[in-house]
């Protein structure tokens, strides 16, 4: 157990009393305490530009009565501060008459080690690798005009104290290694970006000069883009490569299947439970239980153990992703999807690792079947309008397909589609499912949380490509 109360003027049992007193007639709620340590080391323009360290400590106190959430957070773990938060909560929830739900599932499974990645590798070693990255890349190609490489490391310790004193804890490591390259040739500039990461030590991702393959990939993408032509504009067939392009799934259907939007009936999916929302052969799960993945969690931020939630099974909508609040109001159970960026934020139902499972077809078959279309290999980011269902994502590596063959690379373009109908346009599902390299951050209501995605190659019959060539 951590020592959050050690250096404060309040003991754990005093805190427990305040929590129980505040929540006694509420339906749910807890004190969430968090201590995170993070570092960022950045090489840019041939120099170590930044070496910074952050230590963040605070609590968030939440009380829920029926649909109403009262929340108060502070950095000071002290008697005064906790009492003031308690008063704030009580003044919002003036006449509560609920029954506190003590039930919370238990599990002994852990999906990552209790380590602090920052301490496991010295600053000098990290700086040495970043310099090697810079030298390696600049010696590979004379057209390289800029190299940026950085390490981000974090250890987050959380403790959730519920009414009655029940306490749940988790220690979460997370690292990310990123490389960005800019090439300039004949007055034209293009960039390529690649990265890896997850809930393990830096060395798990860097061993055997593995960092070189990250560099090579960033350089390859930049080189491809240097030869790219303007992208076409209009509706056409789209083949998506495996892995990271699954942010299409994340944007197109993932957000729309989060419990809060469906309880409020503001999601385009809210009345489609049990109905066919995707082509046969399309199965999508959201899984928090994959070892060491960026989106994995041993327990969510309400203390519920995570699970593998089937969202769409063979085309049929099966489940939404739920936190405790939305689950209670929709008369179902939490799927362990209650997450928050940190103690400053309320819990929302969020994705973890969202994956479309493999089918039987090959990527070759897909490409061969397309007369005119595009083949999208890598994406920047995406966004969705939950209510209208329209979503976009930006290609960072894509090619035209002409008469069943991959043609020239095309410039970055936005693709737009309609969430509830796009999965019905999936006409082939590949046998090559792949996880993303561990770089995703999902934003919702101003909160960013680490997530993962996975998918096989897929063929979509019709999407609008936002290029400039008519």
């Amino acid at each position, binding site marked *: 157990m951590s020592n959050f109360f050690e250096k404060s003027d309040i003991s754990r049992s005093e805190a427990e009393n305040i929590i129980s007193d505040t929540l006694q007639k509420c339906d749910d709620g807890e004190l969430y305490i968090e201590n995170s340590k993070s570092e960022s080391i950045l090489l840019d323009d041939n120099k170590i530009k930044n*070496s910074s360290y952050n230590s963040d400590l605070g609590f968030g106190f939440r009380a829920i009565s029926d649909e109403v959430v009262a929340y108060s957070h502070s*950095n000071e773990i002290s008697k005064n501060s906790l009492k003031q938060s308690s008063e704030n909560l009580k003044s919002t929830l003036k006449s509560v008459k609920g029954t506190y739900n003590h039930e919370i599932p238990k599990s002994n499974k852990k999906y990552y080690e209790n380590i602090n990645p920052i301490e496991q590798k010295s600053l000098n070693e990290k700086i040495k690798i970043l310099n090697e990255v810079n030298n390696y890349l600049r010696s590979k190609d004379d057209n390289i005009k800029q190299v940026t490489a950085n390490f981000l490391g974090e250890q987050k310790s959380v403790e959730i104290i519920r009414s009655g004193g029940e306490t749940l804890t988790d220690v979460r490591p997370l690292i990310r290694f990123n490389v960005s390259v800019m090439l300039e040739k004949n007055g034209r500039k293009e960039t390529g970006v690649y990265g890896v990461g997850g809930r393990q030590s830096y060395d798990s991702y860097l061993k055997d000069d593995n960092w070189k393959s990250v560099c090579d990939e960033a350089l390859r993408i930049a080189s491809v883009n240097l030869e790219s032509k303007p992208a076409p*504009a209009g509706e056409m067939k789209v083949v998506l490569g495996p892995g990271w392009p699954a942010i299409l799934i994340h944007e197109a259907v993932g957000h729309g299947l989060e419990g809060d939007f469906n309880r409020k009936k503001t999601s385009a999916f809210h009345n489609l439970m049990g109905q066919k929302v995707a082509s046969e052969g399309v199965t999508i799960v959201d899984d928090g239980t994959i070892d060491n993945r960026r989106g994995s969690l041993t327990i969510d931020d309400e203390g519920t153990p995570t699970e593998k939630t089937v969202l769409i099974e063979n085309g049929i909508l099966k489940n939404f992703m739920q936190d405790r609040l939305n689950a209670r109001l929709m008369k179902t159970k939490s799927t362990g999807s209650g997450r928050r960026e940190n103690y400053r934020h309320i819990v929302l139902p969020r994705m973890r690792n969202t994956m479309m499972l493999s089918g039987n077809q090959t990527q070759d078959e897909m490409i061969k079947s397309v007369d005119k279309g595009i083949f999208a290999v890598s994406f920047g980011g995406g966004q969705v309008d939950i209510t209208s269902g329209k979503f976009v994502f930006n290609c960072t590596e894509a090619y035209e397909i002409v008469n069943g063959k991959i043609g020239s690379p095309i410039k970055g373009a936005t693709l737009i589609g309609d969430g509830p109908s796009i999965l019905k346009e999936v006409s082939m599902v590949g046998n090559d499912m792949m996880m993303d390299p561990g770089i995703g951050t999902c934003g919702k209501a101003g909160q960013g949380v680490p997530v993962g995605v996975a998918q096989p190659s897929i063929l979509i019959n019709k999407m609008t490509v936002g290029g400039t060539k008519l």
Partner: protein
Amino acid sequence: MVKDQEFLEKKASYCLGLAKKLGATESSVIVNNSVSETVNFRNKKLDESNRSDDLGISITTYIGKKKSSISSSNLIDDNLNILIEKCVETTKNTPEDEFNSLPDKDLLAKEVKDLNLYDDTHIENDQKIDYLKKLESAASNDKKIVNTESSFTQNKSNFILANSGGFCAGYKTSSFTASSVTVAKDEKSMERDYEYSSKCFLKDLDDAEELGKQAADQTIKKLSPKKIGSEKIAIIFDKRIAKGMLSTFASAISSSAISRGTSFLKDKVNQKIFSDTINVLDKPDILKGLGSRNFDSEGVKTDTLKLVEQGILKHYLIDTYNGKKLNLKSNGRCGGTSNLYFENGNISFKDLLNSKSKSLYITETIGHGSNIVTGDYSVGATGFLVENGEFKYPINEITIAGNFKDMFQNITLANDLEFKYVTNSPTMMIEGMVVAGK
């Protein structure tokens, strides 16, 4: 209550003193406190209350030309001792960079003017609830509105910026923000839109009913949208989207992008990058301005900059580090622009709508489709088809694309500028962009 100047100054000078004792040759520190209280409503009922009390400190230490920084939300001396020791230790192990330094002393702000950025008024949650009740009742008048969410936030902040060169200043700011998000539904579609108001002073905030009604009207207008064909067409950007063009422009002229060579506007100073009639200003001393400030995040004084004059780029946005690298003086833009805006054009909103027989009026864009290295732009968009000055029908599931280099040269601005956001633009028309639809 937000922490007073005395408390913040004491913490700041403690940190500077300790850093010096531990071997730092120079150091700077920012201490801030921000207290926010928010009430959220949904469908005319209380949905959430949220109080946040955030403390933060960030310290940068230098040993000669070596530099490192730490930040924390835990201001207890014990913790600061550990962190500053760690920071100085990391500084020793970080390679030198010849351009690292505190700002030149003669550039630092000498006085802190009262820009009218702090309203001492405290609005109780019950009063926020009254405001939101009025707002939501106005927002849900029409039966087509099926969901309303609204929110009211009061924020009070205070900060101190100090460095080992003797600079020490800070001041309080406040903001009051109300917003309304509505969802409308008909047989064919469900759409969402919003409206909001944010001011330094409570009494300047928009009327609750007006805000709710506007959000609802804008949402209902979007129902039953159509998709149009792919074509080249003039695009009119609503003010709330047009300001995004300025934000992209600001990132492209930041001295960091310029010195790294990663901007399509590198080496363009004194060249014509916009159409002749375009002027861009960054004015930090607007009273009650949402982006107003006395100095930048390094303490350098900020004067008004005419960034673009008759289409010609006059300045980059320069901080100390990148300034030294580019051999230019900081113009107080570490941390970005203040109140950035396009000056008004010569044509009324109505005449702008009328200027083409057919155009697209864009009210929302989605996606991260601005590339400041190449200038390429491609985003998803929602809006209306305009024919002969009249809004014909709503449009969605389209993209709009172009390249900023061409887009900037083809801008026409209306004369309807208002200071609603931090960055502001009049309604904007850009010719020659490509719409991708059916």
